[in-house]
């Protein structure tokens, strides 16, 4: 079957797997339908020219299930001010209603100023919330309304990273360091949350092992692949890569680096996990688990196995292909 360059990498990889990647493909269709519906609901809202409503998480990964939360914020690529349209109340009346409400930590359902994301990279003002907003914007986001403002904000953040890149065949290390820092922050915060409150430990742990890892790998791998590129090709490469969901970036890497079989197994495992996420009974079982009793759960054992299979594929991509010297050169120090 011939492909044009617009065939998503996940579909090209799926052709090599008996049975394809049905859960991922279905999740994308579901997300697209939900996005269309949402845009229609939001169409009546007034939107400032420099504002956008941005969705994250499974919206950004295009992996929506019936049980997904609506993680959103209003992103403003303009001067700080009191009144921004749409207001948080207006958006909150449409998104994050009932059980779909975002978490309690005031990361979502808030205003975010693009200036803070660009000007506060590192140092004291780059708190957990600022880092999270910036990373999720770059790696796992999609606009609902205000797409042009979103695009300008997104490229403004990217250009903030790339300003430090001045030479050919050098990957954008500033961006790489921030992505790696974010992954370690997620992992450390997991334990921090557990110490405060082990509510839903099992489900959170399962997501850390799977979806959060895809988030990280989906940023890490395209950045590492920049090492082959002249400086003026880095920006268009990253724009093209990061405009696609993380699973497409990962699939594209497996195909490009001649590791199709490992890619089939890696994303095959992730596809099974996406199927599990749609199962309410399973979600409830995982949510009830603690660190102490998880090993007794067959469901949790299955998730761990899938997560290990997924990780094994990603590690083969990083360490057993021509990417390996780049990983060694840049990924540790």
């Amino acid at each position, binding site marked *: 079957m011939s492909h044009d360059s617009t065939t998503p990498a996940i579909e090209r990889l799926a052709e*090599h797997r*008996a049975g394809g990647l049905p859960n991922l493909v279905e999740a994308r269709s579901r997300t697209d339908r939900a996005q269309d519906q949402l845009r229609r609901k939001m169409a009546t809202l007034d939107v400032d020219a420099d504002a956008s409503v941005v969705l994250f998480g499974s919206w950004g990964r295009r992996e929506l299930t019936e049980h997904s939360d609506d993680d959103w914020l209003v992103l403003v690529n303009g001067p700080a001010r009191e009144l921004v349209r749409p207001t948080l109340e207006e958006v909150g009346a449409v998104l994050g209603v009932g059980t779909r409400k975002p978490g309690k930590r005031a990361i979502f359902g808030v205003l975010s100023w693009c200036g803070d994301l660009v000007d506060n990279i590192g140092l004291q003002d780059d708190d957990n919330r600022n880092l999270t907003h910036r990373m999720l914007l770059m790696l796992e986001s999609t606009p609902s309304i205000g797409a042009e403002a979103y695009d300008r904000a997104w490229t403004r953040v990217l250009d903030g990273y790339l300003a430090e890149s001045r030479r050919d065949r050098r990957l954008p290390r500033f961006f790489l360091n921030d992505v790696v820092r974010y992954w370690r922050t997620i992992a450390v915060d997991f334990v921090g949350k557990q110490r405060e409150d082990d509510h839903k430990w099992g489900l959170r742990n399962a997501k850390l092992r799977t979806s959060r890892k895809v988030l990280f790998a989906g940023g890490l791998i395209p950045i590492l692949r920049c090492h082959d590129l002249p400086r003026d090709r880095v920006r268009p490469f990253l724009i093209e890569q990061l405009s696609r969901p993380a699973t497409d970036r990962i699939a594209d890497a497996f195909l490009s680096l001649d590791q199709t*079989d*490992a890619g*089939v*197994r890696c994303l095959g495992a992730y596809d099974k996990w996406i199927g599990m996420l749609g199962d309410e009974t399973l979600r409830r079982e995982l949510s009830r688990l603690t660190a102490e009793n998880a090993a007794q759960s067959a469901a949790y054992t299955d998730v761990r196995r899938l997560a290990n299979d997924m990780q094994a594929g990603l590690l083969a991509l990083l360490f057993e*292909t021509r990417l*390996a010297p780049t990983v060694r050169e840049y990924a540790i120090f």
Partner: protein
Amino acid sequence: MLAPRLSLLDHHPIGIATGVFVEARGDWPTLVEIARGVSPFVTELTALSESELPYLLRYLGVAEDLAFAYLSVHAPSKGRKVPEAELIEMLRSLPSAVEAIVVHPDTMVEPIAYRRLGHRLVLENMDMRKATGRTADELSPYLEALPAAGLCFDVAHAANIDGSLREGHHLLTRFADRLRHVHVSSLDASGHHVPLTVRDERVFAPVLHRCRDVPWILEAPLREP
């Protein structure tokens, strides 16, 4: 730019099967320590004779956490005396730290009974000395009857069946999703596992390249330099 030549033996994780260490057979603590000296990440505890299995079970029942990232047990394929159902229950009682239980398909009397081993069951492709389980077509009914089972790809066995390794590639394509780990060695003229030769390392490279994401287990010592 020089493309890095990835030596097969730079693969991670790669470990060794305890069946290599004939002189220590039956001494499980020593076998585990020798295997750990080759790799602390992966090993296969070889209980090829049925008489070895009870001692292995006893050892694993009292041993502290062996801490291998991937621990396989090779189930008995010779000296079989106990009824199959009893053997299956013995294998099922292996601790949860054992992630793979390798079974030769030609020794299975009632394949469907092995469903009790669930996802841990791994079927190995066989060599010319065996009656079945050697090719993708011969393995297919077993893997269909055992949907949770995986494949242990023995590259030397695949080369023994078809020196061109087309059948080896076919196995990897047909059962891509089922691959769990790989056995690595050469075979001598009698079909016994011997150190991987220079020639075989070159010949096996294309199929092994397709297995870079799973553990590899050496079934013979590394060749002398």
